[in-house]
C-alpha cells in the first residue's frame, strides 16, 4: 500500500533534482525547465496533503500554481528570445552585464 509518505518523498526528490539542475546548468532554457520540475514537485505535495486533510483547497492551490507557471514561462521565454536577438547563444553567465 502506498501511503502519503511515498508521494512526499518522491516530491522531495523531484524538487532536489530541479534545484540542482537550476544551480548546475547554464542554458537559460534548461534552467526554466528545472523551475518547472520544482513547481511540479510542489504541486504533488499540495495534492497529497490535500487528500490527507480531505481539503479541496490543495487542488485549488495547484490550479493557481499552474496558471502562474504558464504566465512565468511565457514572460521568461519572451525575455530569452529578446536577449538572444541581441546576443546569440547567451548563457546565464553572460547575462551579468544585463542592463537597460
Amino acid at each position, binding site marked *: 500500500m502506498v501511503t502519503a509518505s511515498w508521494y512526499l518523498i518522491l516530491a522531495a526528490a523531484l524538487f532536489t533534482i530541479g534545484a*540542482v539542475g537550476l544551480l548546475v546548468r547554464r542554458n537559460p532554457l534548461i534552467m526554466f*525547465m528545472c523551475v518547472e520540475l520544482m513547481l511540479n514537485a510542489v504541486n504533488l505535495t499540495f495534492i497529497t*496533503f490535500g*487528500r490527507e486533510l480531505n481539503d479541496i483547497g490543495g487542488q485549488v492551490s495547484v*490550479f493557481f500554481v499552474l496558471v502562474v507557471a504558464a504566465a512565468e514561462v511565457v514572460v521568461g521565454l519572451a525575455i530569452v528570445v529578446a536577449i538572444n536577438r541581441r546576443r546569440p547563444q547567451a548563457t546565464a553567465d553572460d547575462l551579468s552585464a544585463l542592463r537597460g
Partner: protein
Amino acid sequence: METAVFIVCAAIVLAGALGVVLARNPVHAALSLVGTLFGMAVLFLNLEAHFLAAVQIIVYAGAIVVLFLFVIMLLGVDRLEDLSVEPITGQRALAAIVGLGTFGLAVAFLLSGDIGLRSVGILKLDIAGTGQYSNLRQIADVLFTDYVYAFEATAALLTISVVGAVVMSRRMARSDEAQETAEDD
C-alpha cells in the same frame, strides 16, 4: 494496483527529471520534461485529482512544452552543449551539497507534517467525489466562492503576461532601432 502505478510513474518522473538536468541537447531535455509531466499527471489520477490530471496534460505537456520546443527551434539552440567543463570551479560539488541538504530538509519537513496529520487523526476521506459532487464540481464550488478574487487576478495576470511577451519579443521597426542606437550612444 495503486502501488504498481505509483512505482512505474515514480520511475518515469525521476528518469524524466534526470533527463532534463543531464541532457546535452535542449530538445532532448524538453522531451524528457514531457515524460516527467505525463508521469505526474498519472500520479494525480492516483491521488484522485481528476481535473488537475487533465489540466496537467493539456496545459503543461500540451502548451508549455510546445512553447519550449518552439523557442528552441526559433533560436536555433538545438545543438549539443559541452557539459564536461565546469563554468565555475567547485560549482558542482557545492550544488551537490546544496541538493543533499535540500532533499534531507524537505523529506524531514514533509514527513514530520505527514506524521503530525496522522497523530491528529484527520485521514483518508473522499475528495475524489462520488455521485453528483464530482471532483471538478468541488473545485469549482471553492474556486468561484472563496477564491473568486484570486481567480479574477489570474485572468489579469495572464493578460498582462501575454501583452508583456508580445512587447518584449517584438522585433523593433527599423526606425525604432536606429533611434535606440542613437539613444545608446
